């Protein structure tokens, strides 16, 4: 039996979950802070439009994080089901049986990584929903210009949240795919004493490449979300300053 511990002393769990935890923290903070409240002396003029968290952005932008989360959960289940326990008893290995023995590679995103990954994904989606609902349900009144400005800020914040959530999920899904690809290709590769499994080796390399692409694309989305977030933050600061000025006046 050949054993290949790619990262023998680090299980990588904190590393894998860090993007999700950071995103959850951001969403929870945004849900807690919300958007600027209307000035106390703002005219009590309102639009007779039923607001919804789903109307502050294009439909596809809401589908993206859900699709990414479903992909992450599906991958976690598939990887978990194909994982094997390592010597320490954690389901973080990938074993290939050969005629003359077996080859196990670790780390592999089995249940040891998959279950926490599914939990943080569910938490991230919940936190994202909470932030979106908070943005859309915040009171909206004032002059037509005030209301238009407030809606613009909400649209930007919604875009930030959706981009950040999708990007974060893709970053850790990509990382998990990459690690899985490495483990599969290593355990089935041509460097083994056994002839190996060429088909599995190709699958491993493909997963590695797809994982890298996912991670890079996810990182690009996170960077884009930061740009949108900074822009929304500047506008929000302007709105808060306006509100304070009106209250002071």
């Amino acid at each position: 039996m050949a054993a290949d511990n790619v990262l023998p002393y680090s299980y990588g769990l904190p590393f894998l979950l860090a993007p999700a935890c950071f995103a959850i923290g951001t969403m929870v903070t945004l849900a807690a802070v919300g958007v600027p409240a209307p000035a106390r002396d703002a005219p009590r003029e309102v639009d007779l439009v039923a607001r919804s968290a789903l109307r502050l952005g294009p439909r596809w932008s809401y589908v993206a994080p859900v699709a990414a989360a479903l992909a992450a959960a599906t991958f976690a289940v598939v990887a978990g089901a194909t994982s094997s326990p390592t010597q320490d008893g954690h389901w973080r290995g990938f074993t290939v049986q050969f005629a003359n023995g077996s080859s196990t590679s670790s780390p592999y995103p089995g249940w040891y990584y998959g279950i926490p990954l599914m939990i943080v994904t569910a938490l991230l989606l919940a936190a994202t929903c909470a932030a979106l609902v908070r943005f859309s349900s915040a009171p909206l009144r004032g002059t037509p210009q005030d209301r238009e400005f407030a809606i613009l800020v909400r649209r930007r914040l919604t875009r930030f949240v959706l981009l950040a959530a999708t990007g974060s999920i893709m970053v850790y899904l990509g990382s998990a795919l990459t690690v899985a690809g490495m483990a599969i290709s290593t355990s089935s590769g041509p460097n083994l004493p056994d002839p190996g499994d060429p088909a599995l080796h190709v699958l491993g390399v493909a997963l590695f490449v797809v994982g890298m692409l996912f991670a890079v694309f996810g990182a690009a989305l996170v960077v884009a979300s930061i740009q949108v977030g900074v822009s929304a933050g500047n506008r929000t600061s302007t709105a808060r300053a306006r509100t304070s000025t009106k209250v002071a006046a």
Partner: protein
Amino acid sequence: MIAIDLASAIPVFEQIRVQIAGEIRSGRLPEGARLPSVRQLAADLGIAPGTVAKSFSTLELEGLVTTSRASGTRVAPDAALDDATRTSVRQFVHTIDRRTLSLDSLLSAVRAEWDASRPLP
């Protein structure tokens, strides 16, 4: 859009009711249009939800809106005035000199004329 004046002698629920009824009858809120929820409208206007709920229930009694748990409060079918009546009202309003006549005065004159021209039983 609707606006309320907390300093007005007219109760807030009545201000809301009159304005929403006007939006519906004028056709600006089309049949089936969904109104904001009681909670949203109350939060936006900065008033108690019960006040908005009272307006909505009055509008429902008048047949202008329908409320269901699944689809919220929506403009009822055939709640708007017909096109001919709306056109007549628009033309009438355009002929009025706003500098010399208030809306209340005009409405009282319309009411008096309406009562006088009511067909005898």
